[in-house]
């Protein structure tokens, strides 16, 4: 079941595998960097940021850690720590980090500038921009602390196809054809479009893949949208309560709590945005995402030493997941979560979506088969597909539809933030 068309947006870096368990997933040193400025406890791995003296280079020098810090989108936070004297980077390491950080900023800037051009498209679709630029300008102390590598846009399922067409008119391209006619509207969490200028738009119709998505009313999120202003740019974003839950789901379902920046996003909204905590809980319960929220809060306390607002802390203490929530969390957070989620997608939820998904797996369009398996007779292409479904790797001339946005659109961006 893992070897199927996979539009799940896990944003997982190539080769990265989720570790077992929930509590040991966040790399200690990266978590310490991601927690900078949030709380008093900043110890992780080889990095102890609690002392009075600047932290010296870890064994092996700065390079391995800096590479991971940049790859995880934490270079802005780390540079701030160096500027505040928490870290003794040294001139060479600092220069190198600044160089890489600027490259990260340029990528974010190119995407952010594109929002001027996309504004009419977003307006027509009643869309919101998730994460990246809205968080950078809305809740982070400095936008430089929150880089991003693509634009995540949420539209209602009814608008997704028209929005794809509007983006195509602006020069965006889809990396592969739909496997089934209603795949975009019913199955795909998002469709990724790439622009030859190196820009990527992840166009979402919902926040998470699978049956959980059916309980999340995209229309309500869009109806509650607000804006964040950055100079002359006005960015439509979800209401902060919705955005907090989106970030929590992204960190939990998307990254299995492995991505420190995703947790930092939740903490940053919690601490910096005008959030109605009662509404957060009520919405999480409505979405069937209360257990994901509870686990996220646990991570914020355990990893980032975040002092939760009393209302949320009380709710967390009293909260117990239902069997359904626990089951779904197991699918999302366990090892082989992609396969588990796919199985959950096939077993649960609306018949229309499940039929469309089953059809996309067993009888996708010929155009999709040709894109995925290369040239050949139609019977041979279907045979390749079914062999793959059966767990045998087919011989093919092209890679299968990629499972992560890092490979999508042919832009090879690494993990998206």
């Amino acid at each position: 079941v893992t070897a199927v068309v996979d539009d799940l947006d896990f944003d997982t870096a190539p080769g990265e595998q989720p570790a077992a368990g929930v509590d040991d997933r966040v790399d200690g040193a990266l978590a310490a960097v991601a927690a900078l400025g949030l709380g008093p406890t900043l110890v992780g791995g080889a990095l102890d940021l609690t002392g009075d003296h600047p932290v010296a280079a870890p064994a092996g020098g700065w390079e391995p850690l800096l590479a991971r810090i940049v790859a995880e989108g934490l270079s802005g936070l780390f540079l701030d720590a160096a500027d505040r004297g928490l870290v003794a980077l040294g001139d060479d390491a600092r220069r190198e980090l600044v160089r890489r950080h600027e490259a990260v900023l340029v990528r974010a800037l190119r995407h952010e500038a594109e929002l001027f051009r996309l504004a009419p498209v977003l307006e027509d679709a009643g869309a919101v921009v998730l994460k990246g630029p809205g968080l950078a300008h809305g809740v982070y102390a400095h936008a430089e602390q929150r880089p991003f590598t693509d634009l995540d846009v949420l539209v209602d399922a009814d608008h997704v196809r028209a929005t794809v067409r509007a983006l195509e008119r602006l020069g965006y391209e889809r990396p592969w054809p739909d496997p089934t006619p209603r795949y975009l509207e019913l199955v795909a969490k998002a469709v990724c479009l790439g622009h030859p200028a190196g820009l990527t738009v992840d166009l979402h119709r919902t926040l998470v893949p699978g049956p959980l998505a059916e309980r999340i009313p995209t229309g309500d999120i869009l109806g509650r949208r607000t804006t964040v202003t950055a100079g002359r740019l006005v960015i439509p974003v979800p209401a902060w309560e919705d955005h907090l839950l989106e970030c929590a789901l992204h960190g939990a379902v998307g990254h299995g709590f492995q991505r420190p920046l995703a947790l930092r996003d939740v903490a940053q909204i919690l601490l910096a945005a005008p959030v109605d905590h009662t509404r957060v809980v009520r919405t999480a319960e409505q979405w069937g995402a209360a257990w994901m929220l509870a686990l996220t809060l646990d991570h914020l306390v355990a990893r980032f030493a975040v002092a939760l607002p009393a209302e949320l802390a009380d709710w967390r203490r009293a909260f117990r997941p239902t069997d359904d929530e626990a089951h779904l969390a197991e699918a999302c957070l366990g090892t082989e979560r992609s396969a588990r989620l796919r199985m959950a997608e096939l077993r649960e939820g609306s018949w229309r979506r499940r039929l469309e998904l089953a059809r996309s797996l067993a009888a996708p369009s010929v155009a999709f088969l040709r894109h995925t398996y290369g040239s050949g007779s139609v019977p041979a292409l279907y045979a390749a597909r079914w062999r793959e479904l059966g767990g045998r790797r087919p011989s093919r001339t092209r890679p299968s539809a990629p499972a992560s946005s890092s490979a999508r659109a042919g832009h090879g961006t690494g993990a998206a933030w």
Partner: protein
Amino acid sequence: VRPPLDATSVLGPGRVAHRRLHDGALAVAGPEPGGEVVRIAGTGPALWRALDGQRPLGEVAHELAVRHRADPTVVLADVCTTAQRYLDLGVAELVPPGGATAP
């Protein structure tokens, strides 16, 4: 052809995305994808931030001259030259007399 900038010219921020650097700022103008990345360094960021769509360049130059204890005439000439460069790069826009920066 635009007339040259002078002390009465008013400039506002362009449709740009920008980020702070330790020694300046990075900006990308928005109209076209893959636009040029502009590095603003030295005294450039101070001037760029001062282009608020309200104050004429003469007033901005006077403020900079006082801050840097420099010859106001020289500063005004430098400000007009640099502001022209910002216009050319799309990171600033000229505000018509009596107008405000377009949203």
